[in-house]
């Protein structure tokens, strides 16, 4: 695939992520903060988001396996996940966290379990999609091109 095709593919891919509600305008904000002097800013922030999210999802899984479930602690953890997903524009994950928090507040175990599964699923999707997008960007850079805005 030549450079122009790669660039077009990236723009189309990115547009679809917004269109399908995976990403929102906060992601655009982050991209606007990147420049020649800080070319890896978005990748770095998103990597932190991945680390943070995986840690939180693990803790939430463990919390729901306990005899006595600490809903307050879970709520705090979901709040953290909601915050970081909002900060990078991971729209679907953020929305699910809001629902999750409601179940925590209601101390609804079934609701929490279901929500956790959904969040894990959505998180998996956005992680794959962002990694694909970064790979496309790297291909463009390797081909000597610049990443279209």
């Amino acid at each position, binding site marked *: 695939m030549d450079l122009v095709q790669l660039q077009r593919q990236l723009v189309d891919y990115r547009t679809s992520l917004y269109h399908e509600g995976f990403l929102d305008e*906060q992601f655009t*904000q*982050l991209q*606007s*903060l990147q*420049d020649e002097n*800080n070319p890896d*800013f978005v990748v*770095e*922030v998103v990597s*932190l*988001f991945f*680390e*943070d999210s995986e840690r939180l999802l693990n803790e939430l899984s463990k919390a729901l396996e306990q005899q006595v479930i600490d809903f307050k602690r879970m709520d*705090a953890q979901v*709040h*953290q996940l*909601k*915050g*970081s997903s*909002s*900060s*990078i*524009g991971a729209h679907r994950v*953020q*929305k699910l966290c*809001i629902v999750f928090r409601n179940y925590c507040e209601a101390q609804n175990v079934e609701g929490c379990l279901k929500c956790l599964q959904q969040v894990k699923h959505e998180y998996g999707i956005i992680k794959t999609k962002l990694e694909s997008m970064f790979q496309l960007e790297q291909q463009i850079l390797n081909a000597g091109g610049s990443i279209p805005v």
Partner: protein
Amino acid sequence: MARNGGVAWMRTTEKIDGYDLSTSDTEEVHVLAVDDSLVDRKVIERLLRISSCKVTAVDSGRRALQYLGLDEEIQKKETNGFDGLKVDLIITDYCMPGMTGYELLKKVKESSAFREIPVVIMSSENVIARIDRCLEKGAEDFIVKPVKLSDVKRIIDYTTTELREGEQRGARARRRGINKRKQREGDDDLSSSPPSTLSSSTSSSPSSSIQSATAPLSPSTLDSPTRRLKMTSSE
């Protein structure tokens, strides 16, 4: 980029009066950013650097107090924090484990050494009662997360304006001080200095009157979009 514009602007200010106006050691605004989220710390750091600020980012209210030298359990080593840099602005998250941003705000505003430092609160929750409580405690502004560059730029703009006005007031006070001394030495009282809040100050040194002249809340905070409660799609 914005960085160059910011620094050049500050240099111009110093030349206006022809006096040495350096009340701070650096030209850039030094911001202490407080947030327990690693992702948010990285983002706010970048936003502040783009806005031509020096940034120190810490992960808790406790560490923020330690940096300022306000932590009761740790002996103050220096008056201005670990690396001696004066803090011009504090931006803190509201919801943090341990000490909340509100509690940090209270401690800063209750301290005689640091109460003049403007404190801005960030929160993902757009709750009127929370915003009001923070503003009443002396917060400069309240930003609803996720934080955007326009939010940060607005805050840095009026912080630097207040700092500059503080310095200019200081310079005017110093000039008035010099004039008054000359008048006392001379015969005539040809005082042409305009009446000001500073001349009625009971403190003798001009530097402390700079502190009292700083407005606690600038008019621009009332115009802040957050004060008008922007409707976010979340919650």
